[in-house]
């Protein structure tokens, strides 16, 4: 780990100023970083994937560790709310069950006790080429995505190129399915960013980042609107090792049913298969008005993975994710 300055502000504005006033560097991986639970940031620092000149501790800022609201009003989740808080919150479990399931699926109880909602959304890639100190890949300022032709069983089948990372967050697909947005405060003021505009594909955004946050911006809150699909939401994550793992593939599904049990609207978002949480609008549109059955599930699964372009070693992700789409939709509908 490279030496760094440590700053522990008491307010959001102080934190933003501390991020902005940090020594200027041409290397984006040396920019000052905010730290909440530190469960991801510290590992990237130990791997030298990031080498921040200053670490700004957010844990001393009051008021960002609460979950407010309910199923009728929607939720406001402070960025410092821990994953444990989220999974155990009775309102979340009752009215936004998929969100509780997504939180519960993450890592281990120890990590969930420290890891935060804001930090989970801002995790860096798990790709082993990115994480290895001795490899300088495209994401770290190098010239090559080694996963493209290398050991790519964990990498992207959708939205890849020129980098083929998958986004590691489990909350992101579920929050996106629930129509959430994030409140962000930076040196230039406050802004609210819908999650579907927050994450960036490697081809579109800064290749060294996975979202639109500027170096001096901090997520302060996540808003989850009240929604007719929230009560029938579910998150299905497939881990290679059940005890503790990132997703080989996952599906966030949420549906609203009509009185006759046909689908009024559906949300389907895939995790673990693309550099961003991957929404499947064709599958969602197809499901409207349908009664769930084997053929409908199979077609929805096919549509959700349409356009998938597996690399040499991850073709299995297509049938795997299709299975998860079928199972997640069946669970969302049937409970």
């Amino acid at each position, binding site marked *: 780990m490279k030496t760094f300055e440590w700053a522990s502000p008491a307010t959001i504005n102080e934190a933003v100023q501390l991020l902005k006033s940090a020594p200027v560097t041409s290397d984006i991986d040396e920019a000052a970083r905010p730290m909440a639970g530190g469960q991801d940031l510290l590992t990237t620092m130990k791997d030298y994937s990031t080498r921040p000149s200053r670490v700004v501790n957010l844990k001393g800022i009051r008021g960002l560790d609460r979950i407010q609201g309910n199923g009728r009003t929607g939720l406001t989740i402070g960025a410092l709310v821990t994953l444990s808080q989220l999974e155990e919150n009775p309102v979340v479990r009752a009215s936004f069950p998929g969100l509780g399931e997504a939180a519960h699926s993450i890592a281990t109880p120890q990590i969930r006790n420290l890891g935060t909602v804001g930090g989970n959304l801002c995790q860096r890639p*798990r790709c*082993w*080429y990115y994480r*290895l100190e*001795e*490899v300088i890949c495209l994401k770290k300022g190098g010239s090559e995505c*080694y996963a493209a*032709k*290398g*050991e790519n*069983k964990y990498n992207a089948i959708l939205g890849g190129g020129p980098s083929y990372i998958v986004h590691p967050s489990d909350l992101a697909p579920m929050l996106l399915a629930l129509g959430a947005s994030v409140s962000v405060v930076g040196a230039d003021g406050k802004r609210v960013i819908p999650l579907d505009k927050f994450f960036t594909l490697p081809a579109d955004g800064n290749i060294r980042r996975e979202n639109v946050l500027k170096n001096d911006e901090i997520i302060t809150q996540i808003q989850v609107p009240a929604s007719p699909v929230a009560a029938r939401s579910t998150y299905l994550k*497939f881990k*290679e*090792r*059940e*005890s*503790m*793992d990132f997703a*080989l593939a996952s599906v966030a599904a949420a549906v609203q049913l009509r009185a006759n049990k046909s689908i009024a609207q559906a949300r389907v978002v895939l995790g673990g298969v693309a550099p961003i949480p991957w929404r499947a609008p064709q599958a969602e549109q197809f499901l409207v008005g349908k009664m769930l059955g084997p053929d409908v599930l199979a077609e929805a699964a096919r549509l959700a993975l349409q356009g998938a372009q597996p690399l040499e*070693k*991850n*073709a*299995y*992700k297509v*049938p*795997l994710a299709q*299975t*998860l789409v079928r199972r997640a939709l069946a669970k969302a509908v049937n409970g």
Partner: protein
Amino acid sequence: MGRSSRCDEDASRAMRAPGHPQASYAMESLMDDLAAKLGMDPLEFRKKNLKDTVYHRQLDRGAREIGWQRRNQTPGAGAGTLKRGIGCAVGTWGGGGNDQCKVDVTISRDGSVVVAVGTQDLGTGTRTFTRAIVAEEFGLQLKDIVEKIGNSKLGGANASGGSTTSASLSPSVKDAAIKARMAMAEKIAPLLGNAKPEEITFANGSVNGGGKSVSWQQAAAALPAAGITARGGWRSDLQSSGVHGACFAEVEVDTETGRVRAIKMVQVQDVGLPLNRLAVESQINGGMIQSLGMVLSEGRVMDAELGIQLNPGFGDYKLPGAAEIPELVPLIDDEDKREAVIGVGEAAIIPSVGALANAVFNACGVRIHDLPMTPDKILMALMNGRTTA
């Protein structure tokens, strides 16, 4: 089998029965394939071809415990997404000891007993059996004995390797304890009506002879001021070598995700004289769990161009966690009547690798020739046909 290939990677290191689980996996997969080709019960096939009848009784016992008759009669048969299967395999290991250990047992006038030798405890129970052997000899309890180990100033000991620690050390401990007992008996004979030393018995904290009985403390108080120290050495008659194991595994394969979930594992193992049943059972459990990792999740991933290992940490090198562990039934084969110590550490990992692999084959009809059998391999094999290269 048995061919090495140059691969410009870091050399492999010795890990619990080096080469054995790997070879056993290959051999037992082939035996299973042969049985399937012949349409034979894999268990009967093994019994027909294994001359050593120890395997026969172990296979029969394991089969009863797992419910062998519940297996798929035809590998991969049956409807439904979740398919169960049962597999079996056997393993062998040498073990045994050699003449390297010098053990000192010291009895002081305050009744304390110290057993000292320069060995170490890898976590495999050396401290426990070192105490236990001495305690048994004196009719005392484990708590009454102090063991001093892990110091090269103490009596010489063997290095740990090849499952030889127990079999090398315990004869010397026993020898030292017997010599100390006899030396003590000679010294305290006057207390016991000048009974013959060899007729003095030590049991339940008391010392008996000549129609009299004194407590251990009273007996020890009669020793010379310096107490007694006896040195023990090698006794080949107290050790042996050669063990057998048979493992049965039941798994469930999710044919739509490629997930293999272990349901139950049963392993029968002979060990000669089990010095501590709990420790032996723990060794067998550990062998089954490490096999589970080897078969289902652990593997070194190298980048062919960069020449580096991509998963050097325990995030990506996936050891089984608590959620992966099935019901484990470790069974000591008590029909082994050898009154000799052998060592079971490495033996315990050998048969379970093949048993798990054969259970996967029995469940879904797919033979995976490349460990670990991660979901990607199973799923693609199920989609593409019956086997992987």
